[in-house]
């Protein structure tokens, strides 16, 4: 029986996945999904999965209720304006399904045909972790397996006839005690670190930040599915760079000039201090509208990248968000300087619709 429902359930999940995949571009452009994130899952509205019927429209006629209230009062329990249905048994029109981030990453991977990432090959670091997989008869109380212990005790009491339908109590004796036991397992370690850098100078507006935010969410989701352990760091910069937390990163609005090299040198400093490249897969992402203070600073940037950041990173990604004020010169400079270096990926993001293509640019190389 469980088997049958599992088949039906798997089929349903497949249909949901298909629907999400079909509308992935829309879902990505629509940042709502990120706001609906809760822990390891996101809620995604999937229209038209439930079978349609001829039925009455919603919110028209109202209906009959039960409870207190004068004419003109809100119906008890109907606190949110504009939601709910008429009639006695109308359901939700739009189905909202919960999808785990892992599954979402899989869907993203399938749709964008992203290759799995091969961790940098120069070292194989392994770690030992303990997994609780077995049972033993001695151990500390904190590891006592209560259910197993109780089961053993119960079996013994029933076998000795002291416990049964007519009554009796189950009292475990030391011989019944079972404790969790662990086995050490060796697993290859692959850690990754994303360092997001964003230009927050006056020319980056709210829409540009929104684009960065959405793109960062999807990059996170994908890389998380590829690495067991993922750390994320955030740097904002105008003329000066500083490290901030995620919330500040997405909401801060400064105004001022732009010196991109400040961010790159801070990024480099963070890598040097905390993420030795032999142990970490490092992904610096930089988002900007492409305006830099001066040609001199751009030259410094290129130099920093070439001599410091690039050798330490898996890949360096630069996303240029189009804005009314930015000149977009920086991408041209980068492309020109690193035209034959596979370690640098640049991408132009004209608007929200362009996010998906940009993600493909960044992650499509499998690095």
């Amino acid at each position: 029986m469980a088997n049958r429902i599992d088949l039906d359930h798997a089929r349903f999940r497949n249909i949901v996945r298909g629907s999400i995949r079909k509308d992935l571009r829309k879902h990505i452009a629509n940042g709502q999904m990120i706001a609906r994130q809760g822990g390891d899952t996101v809620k995604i509205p999937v229209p038209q999965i439930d079978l349609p019927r001829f039925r009455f429209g919603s919110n028209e006629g109202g209906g009959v209720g039960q409870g207190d209230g004068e004419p003109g009062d809100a119906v008890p329990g109907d606190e949110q304006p504009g939601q709910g249905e008429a009639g006695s048994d109308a359901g939700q029109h739009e189905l909202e399904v919960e999808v785990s981030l892992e599954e979402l990453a899989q869907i993203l991977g399938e749709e964008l045909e992203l290759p799995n990432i091969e961790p940098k090959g120069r070292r194989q670091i392994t770690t030992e972790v303990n997994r609780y997989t077995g049972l033993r008869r001695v151990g500390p109380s904190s590891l006592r397996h209560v259910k197993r212990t109780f089961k053993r005790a119960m079996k013994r009491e029933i076998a000795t006839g002291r416990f049964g339908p007519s009554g009796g109590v189950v009292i475990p004796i030391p011989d019944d005690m079972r404790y969790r036991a662990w086995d050490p397992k060796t697993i290859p370690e692959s850690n990754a670190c994303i360092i997001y850098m964003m230009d927050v100078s006056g020319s980056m507006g709210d829409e540009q930040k929104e684009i960065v935010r959405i793109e960062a969410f999807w990059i996170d989701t994908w890389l998380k599915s590829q690495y067991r352990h993922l750390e994320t760091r955030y740097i904002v910069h105008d003329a000066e760079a500083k490290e901030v937390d995620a919330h500040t990163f997405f909401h801060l609005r400064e105004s001022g000039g732009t010196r991109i090299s400040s961010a790159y040198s801070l990024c480099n400093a963070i890598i040097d201090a905390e993420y030795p490249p032999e142990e970490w897969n490092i992904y610096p992402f930089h988002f900007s509208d492409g305006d830099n203070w001066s040609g001199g600073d751009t030259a410094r940037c290129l130099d920093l990248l070439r001599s410091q950041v690039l050798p330490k990173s898996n890949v360096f990604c630069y996303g240029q968000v189009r804005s009314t004020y930015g000149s977009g010169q920086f991408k041209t400079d980068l492309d020109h300087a690193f035209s034959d270096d596979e370690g640098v990926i640049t991408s132009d993001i004209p608007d929200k619709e362009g996010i998906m293509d940009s993600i493909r640019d960044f992650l499509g190389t499998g690095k």
Partner: protein
Amino acid sequence: MHTLGLPPELADLQRRVVGVASGYGLDFFETVFEMVTTEQINTIAAYDGFPVRYRHWRFGMAYDRIEKSSSWGLSKIYELVINNDPCYAYLLKGNLFVDQKLVMAHVYGHCDFFKNNAWFAPTNRHMVDELASHAVRMESHARNHGQDKVEEFLDSCLSLENLIDIYAPYTPPKRRSDDEEETGREVVRFKAKPYMESFINPPEVMAEEQKEIEAERDARQPFPERPERDVMKFLMETAPLRPWQKDCLAMVREEAYYFAPQRLTKIMNEGWASYWHSKMMTEHLCDTSDILDFAERHAGAMAMSGEQINPYKLGIELYRNIEERWDKGRFGKEYDDCRDYDAKQRWDTGLGEGRKKIFDVRHTYNDVTFVDTFLTPSFCDEQKLFTYAFNPQTGRKEVTGRDFGEVKARLLQQLANGGQPIIEVTNGNFGNRGELVLTHRHDELDLDANMAAQTMQHLHRVWTRPVHIETILEGKPTRLSFDGEKHTSEAI
């Protein structure tokens, strides 16, 4: 009595409950209880209470929803019983003993209702077997034609499953119109001598005229002859279906007819079961230590929830109200004509027919007639019923009033036809092009146009020619059409 598989204390309990229930005069099919885990009951609930159904993703969808809300603790299925002989009901492993008592008492209320309510009389009492055999038939179609193909066609059948005539099992079959007299024009034949016959009434002219008349009659002859409310049946008989498709449609239709009475008697059925679990628990089954737990469960099930009528609550209160009225003789002309408030409050003729009356009621009524007959202004007041409507200005639903007439009218409207729009086939050969026209008998409520458009795609898949539905949208008579590629809508 069947107590196999129950732990001894529950088997004892079952014997006790059966004794108590029979003592009250409840009359039920033999009932088989089965102990299940939460996971199992969620599965069974996804299959509408049956252990075996055909394969379809919608059960998976139902399971997804049930399983999530149960694992988050938002809802818990306490009781599940199916209309079958014997009745099958499920007890959740690990429930409190008092919960098991409550569930058993409640279940016997349902079983009595299934067996005795007239609206359940035509239902198949061996539906467990029938559904299992449906599963086998579907499986064999899937083997022969491919699971995807069958499932896709099932999607279409299921989206039409509410287009049945739920009152059909209770009405005598309509007489065929063959016995009605044919009236109409006949070929005029002039009087003539035999040797002049072929000149005055030339045979070729006569034959042509005859043809004309027949064509005229055919054009007047509607198809179907009368509007057909059982759209599924009409499709089965006339749509160009392959045998396996016809079989799928037939199975879905049969299941829809089986489940229909439960929609027709939701208030009565739940009310009846609640009335009896409450009686049995408080008068016989509860130990002193059970009372608080029972009271909490009972109150939870009877909770009023604002914008929705709770069928348990409305049902149990109506039965109690009827019992009181017939115990005290508070009905009939004399009582109705009495204008003295105090006298009415004290009215008690000592009639004592209450229990008998509610047994009669559970035998013959359905939700519509139940509410229509027994909802009284004072009951409406006591139960704080109100009407509400959506106010576009405030964007919320607001109480509009507590007028008895309106409450009752609204309630009946919600219950009529099991809460489904009334839709009939009015023309199976629209424009002489083999196109299908459905007509929605509009009664205040509009159809959901978006849903209707999607449903028509499914209808088209079955009918294979263009399909139309005539309805009223925002006050304007409208014909929605779908020709296989695009949707159109025109005023009529």
